[in-house]
């Protein structure tokens, strides 16, 4: 973000808020997202979703900032952030791996694909590796059963996966 834009946003502040600056740059990004939604409490979920997609997770500092600027109680934000699976209160990797465990994928060997992913990345479903590269999740159906077993990585769908192909696919992600 260039300096002019930062100044402009700072001038436009309607709500009182202190910049904690605990996470470098995060507080500015959160401010920009909140300003985009005109500081409206009704845009709470939209604001949280945008922070989630930019930052991959919702740190406590960001939630405090949102609570203060949108004038929404923190309990309410916590309730929403824990209710929807789209939000994460723990750090997530840059690429989310979703291994489909639906019926069609299951009978075509999804379990073996999952085992291979676990071995290659060193993480179990629900976990994130230490370099924040991958987060692993299992899902129940991705909706393209004819392509099974399906693995979705960072939004891109990889169909007809096999344990042997997995290493080649994962190699492409940094």
């Amino acid at each position: 973000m260039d300096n002019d834009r930062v100044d402009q946003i700072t001038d436009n502040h309607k709500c009182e808020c202190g910049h904690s600056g605990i996470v470098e740059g995060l507080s500015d990004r959160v401010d920009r997202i909140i300003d985009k939604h005109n500081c409206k409490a009704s845009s709470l979920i939209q604001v949280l979703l945008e922070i989630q997609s930019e930052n991959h997770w919702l740190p406590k500092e960001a939630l405090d900032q949102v609570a203060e600027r949108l004038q929404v109680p923190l309990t309410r934000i916590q309730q929403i952030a824990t209710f929807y699976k789209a939000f994460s209160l723990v750090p997530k990797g840059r690429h989310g791996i979703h291994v489909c465990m639906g019926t069609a994928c299951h009978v075509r060997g999804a379990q073996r694909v999952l085992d291979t992913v676990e071995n290659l990345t060193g993480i179990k479903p629900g976990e994130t590796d230490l370099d924040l590269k991958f987060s692993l999740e299992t899902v129940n159906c991705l909706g393209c059963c004819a392509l099974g077993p399906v693995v979705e990585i960072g939004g891109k769908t990889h169909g007809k996966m096999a344990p042997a192909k997995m290493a080649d696919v994962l190699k492409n992600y940094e």
Partner: protein
Amino acid sequence: MSDIVLQIDGIEVTANEEMTVLEAAQKAGISIPTLCHHEKLEPYGACRLCLVELESRGRSRLVVSCLYPVEKGLVVKTRSEKVDRIRKMILELLLSHAPDAFDLQDLAREYGADKYRFAKEPSFCVHCGLCVRYCAEVKKKEAIGFVNRGTKREISFIPEIASRECWNCKECFPLCPTEALQAAYVLAKAIAFPATAE
């Protein structure tokens, strides 16, 4: 404000139009069991225990009295075979969460509910929301709220607010129909002041 006349358990009761069936019954001295109702708070309808049978136009239906506004000529039955059966079931389900809650055990005796009917899954919280709503509506502190959803839903204090406000308040403790709240508070205190935890 016009008065509305309705019949509760065969007694003519007058109520004003903002009242709910539960309030009208309480005014007439008819008791309806409740867990999540509190006179200072907005009706919530979480525990479903205050359910009553309504008769109108020859049909009967079940509604929760704490949310249902009074209507002219309503015929309400606070106890009937059907109502008792459902209340017994609700109690048995709640008791699997909080088997040792005194309020629930008293009601279980009255309705013949068996606390061992369902496998125990003691979370100790029956999600009545009294603490959460009291903190938000009466105290306006919002130190406690619900987190997660479905079977994992539970109450949670915000440690920063709790450490500032709760020590001198604790007004939500006596509201809890089980003892879950106190446990949650002890936990929040332990998180907020790791050094002072007993």
